[in-house]
Every structure is written in C-alpha cells, then in structure tokens.
C-alpha cells in the first residue's frame, strides 16, 4: 500500500510539472502571435485640421486603418452635438472608416450625405450613425487628443473620454 501511495505521489508530481510546462508553452505560443513591440509603438498619427474647408472630407491613416474626417458647415451638413469633435471653431466628424459590420471601407457620398458601404449595403449618416443595413452600431471613434488645431490619434484625451461617455 505504501508503495502504491508513493507511486501516486510521483505520478501527481510528474503530472503537475507537465501541466505547468504545458501552460508555460501555451503562454509563449500566445505571446508569439501578439502584435510586435514595433507594431504597438507605431500607433500614433498627428493631423493638422486648420487647412480643412467646411464640407471637406478627407481620409488619413492610423494603425493601418482609414480615419474619416469630415468638417461640418452650418448650412448643409448637420452638426451632431453629441457625436462631433470640436477643434477651435470647427465641428468635425472623426471616425474609424471601417463598416462596423465586417470591416469594409464605406464611401462618402457627398450629394446624399451618407457613408455607403458597398460590401453589404450598410449606410451611416453624417453623424456616423448606422441608418440602414446590417451594421450593428455607429462608426467607431478612434482614441484621440486635441492639441491646438491638431488632432493626435492614438491617445485618449479628455475630449475623447467625454465623447464616448467614459468621463
């Protein structure tokens, strides 16, 4: 009986070490697939918004993703108080330009004032709100910070926190 207990103990010790080694190996495998430090570090983009004219639409790149910036003008494009970013005197829509359905890039149709996604017919209005089709939520807001007339993408400033309701 005593022998049997010693064997069980050895078996459990062996099993314990094997399990710990297995977990360590899985962790290493998981980390190997994580984004590299160089990828993480390249996560900031600065955009100067002052040269933009009212009604102008432009796309910049941040973390390989398109960022839509639309400068509102008081006459045609409605302002969206709880969805717009105010930089200086201007009102801007700042959104990640990927359809929240499956990640295609919607096109800005200035005459109809909608973002239309060709992939599955999703539509967003000038406030970034999903108005038609399969997209489940408005266009996402990228983390940003405002420095004078400049928009720094990649850092969560107070304006961002206010906009997404974190503050």
């Amino acid at each position, binding site marked *: 009986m005593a022998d049997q207990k010693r064997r069980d103990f050895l078996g459990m010790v062996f099993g314990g070490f094997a399990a710990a080694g297995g977990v360590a190996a899985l962790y290493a495998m*998981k980390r190997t*697939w*994580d*984004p*590299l430090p160089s*990828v993480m570090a390249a*996560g900031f983009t600065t955009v100067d918004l002052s040269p933009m004219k009212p009604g102008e639409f432009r*796309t910049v*790149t941040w*973390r*390989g*993703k*398109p960022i839509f910036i639309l400068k509102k003008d008081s006459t045609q494009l409605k302002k969206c108080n709880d969805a717009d970013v105010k930089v200086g005197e201007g009102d801007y829509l700042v959104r990640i330009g990927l359809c*929240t*359905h*499956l*990640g*295609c*890039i919607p096109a800005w149709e200035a005459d109809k004032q909608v973002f239309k*996604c*060709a*992939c*599955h*017919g999703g539509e967003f209005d000038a406030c970034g709100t999903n108005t038609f*089709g*399969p*997209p*489940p*939520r408005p266009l996402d807001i990228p983390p940003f910070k405002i420095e004078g007339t400049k928009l720094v993408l990649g850092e969560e400033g107070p304006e961002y926190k206010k906009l997404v309701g974190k503050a």
Partner: protein
Amino acid sequence: MAHFEKANSVYEWLDQRLAVTKLTKVLMTEYWIPKNINFLWAMGVVLMTMFTILLISGIFLLMYYKPDTKLAFDSVNYTIMQEVWFGWLWRHMHGVAASVVFLVIYIHMFTGIYYGSYKKGREMIWISGMLLFVTFSAEAFSGYMLPWGQMSYWAAQVITNLFGGIPFIGDELVIWIRGNFYVADATLTRFFMLHVLLLPLVIMGIIGLHFYSLRIPHVNNQEGEEIDFDAEAEKYKAGRKAESKVIPFWPVFLSKDLFVLGVFMVFYFYLVFYHYNFAMDPINFDPANPMKTPPHIYPEWYFLWSYEVLRGFFFDVGPLSAMDIGLIAFGIANVIFFLMPWLDRSPVVAPAHKRGAFKIWFWILVVDMIVLTIWGKLPPTGANAWIGFFASITFLTLLLVALPLITKKEAQRAGGAA
C-alpha cells in the same frame, strides 16, 4: 525478437520485416467493397488524387513564392507566372484543383446524405469527413490570402473580423489573430505557415482517420443493405465470385474508380488548360490596398452558400442585432452537418428515393443551397436581400426543424411495420 531466416528475394526480405503480404491483404486485396455501388462512390479516390495534385503543385509554387507583403504579389504574378518555366502550369493546377476539390467534396457529402451513409455505426466516417471539410475550408481560405491581391486582402479582412463578434474578447482576439491592428505582414506570414505546414499536416492526419473509420462499419451501398462482410468475403475467396456480394478493393474495385477518375481528370485538365480563369478572380490581379475596398466583395463559389446565410439577416429582431443573428446563423450553418447522424432520427438506411418525405427534403436542401450560392454572389440590395433572407431561413428550418420531424415519423412507420 522474431526468428529470421535467410531471404531468397527482396520481397521475402521485406515480408519478414514489414509483413508486406499481410499489409497488402488488409489494405488492398482483402479490403472488401460491396458490388452494389455506383460511380458516386469513386469520389473518395478522386479527392485523394486532387489532394495529391495540390500537394505536389504546392511544393513547386513554394520554391518561388515570397511570404512578404511587399514581394508576395509580384512573386506570384510576375516570377511564377512569367519567369519560372511551367510556373503557370503549377499555379493553374493548384488554383483549379483548390476550386474543383470543393465540387467533389460537396458531391461526396451529398452522396452520403442521399444514401444515409452517416447512420448508426458509420457516424465516425461522417464526422471525420466533416472535419476534413472544415480543415479544407481553412486551408483554402489561408491559401487564397497568399497572392496578396485585393480580394485576398479583403477576404482576410472580413473573415478575421468575424471573430470580433465573439462576446467580450472579440476585439482583442481580432488583433491577436492578425498580429497587427490591421491585416498586415504578420497576418500574411502566419497564414502562410498555416497553409503550407500546419493545416496540411492536420489534413493528412484526418485523411488517415477517415480511411481507418471505414474499416469496421465498411462502406455503405446503393440499397443501404446490411451485408455480412465476413461471410461474403469467404464466398469470394472460395471462388464463388458471382454469388458473393463483395469484391476486393484491389484490383477489382479500383478499376472502376480509375475509370471515373479518368473521366474526371479530362474535365480537370480541360479547366486547367482552357478555363483556369474561373478559379482566378479578376479583382485579385490588383495588388492589395488596405485603404480601398473593392465595390463588391464575395468569396469563392464554394463558400457562397454560408456567406449568404451570414448576410441573409439584415434587420434586428428585438434585442438581437442583425449582425449577431447573421453570425449565429453562420456558426450554425458551419457545424450543423456534423450533427446529421442525430438530426436524422430514422434508423432506415436506404437511398432517398425510397424514403418518401426525406426525398423531398433532400432535393429542397440541394435547391436551397444552390439558391444561396447564386444569391451569395449578387449584391445584397432590394429583392436580393429578401431572397437571401428566405433562403437562409429555409436552410435553417430544413436542418433544425424539418429533418428531425420527417425522420421521426419515418422511424415510427418503420417501427410499426416491423
């Protein structure tokens, strides 16, 4: 150790060490196949041949392909297609085989459904076959990415995005799978690894399991007849070949397989040499551009039916958003066939044309999947969206509701008659 005597021939030397005679019997000359099966049962051998072609052509492509987002497109479209002698041949053989292999898989699958080959005793054959279907799908998708064209890029974008639908961890999971915030070099190199090493290894393992799973229950036949393979094999070995219901795999049965394979290979090489374009989407001849989506994206034809189920639901129902419903339906569509042995509750093993309502069910399913496939390619607007919706609902209803009900009634009738 066993006792070894001096061998009189190379064959005898090998036979002593590897039991070649016995192995040939088990795998070939005494592996019994029912006589009563038609050309549809040759699809296994056709698939094996296609897989071999994919493996060999893949090895030759691998020697010039460069898994780097800056080099991948040109290594395929310039180096392999223009410079490498017969590079075009390997590419077209690989591309066409990757496409037609799914045609044959679907025929193989629907043959199994038509004749009830997934039923009691044969569940493992069915499940290992479905596992092969899923790994082949992953293999096809990871390979589709490698030429790094526009369709490759956006297919990767959409498919990796699907994981974002998983609650709580979705967003982080997508970044983890891609190895970047967007589909980038890290994504390409890891899918390259999956395509050329890990998934082929897994596929070969499951092919082994699939073949092994046939040994004990044996292959089904056209009538669903239960055959006593041992007794029938004895008859055959005793020389009563006409009377016996079985024949050996080699050389008797394989001759029929090889005839079907011959016809298929004519079709295959006709496609490779004259119609390779059907497996080459024109949009994929534009290099990948993360800042511009093609106006209309769609997968290759063999994924269209499940793609249409994914996007078939375009309006919210109560608390469930359209996207979540689509994702759930898509998830179900991809695993539901695994459950065939349990969804079909009738013990009757017979071809569909002898099973009344099941026959109608079978053909509606085939037609519905063809409708899903056609509408999966059309833009999802207006009436198309509604056709997609109803076809998706029909698909789910057929498998989740109609099949258990129909087959339960059939089981009751069969039980009553016996």
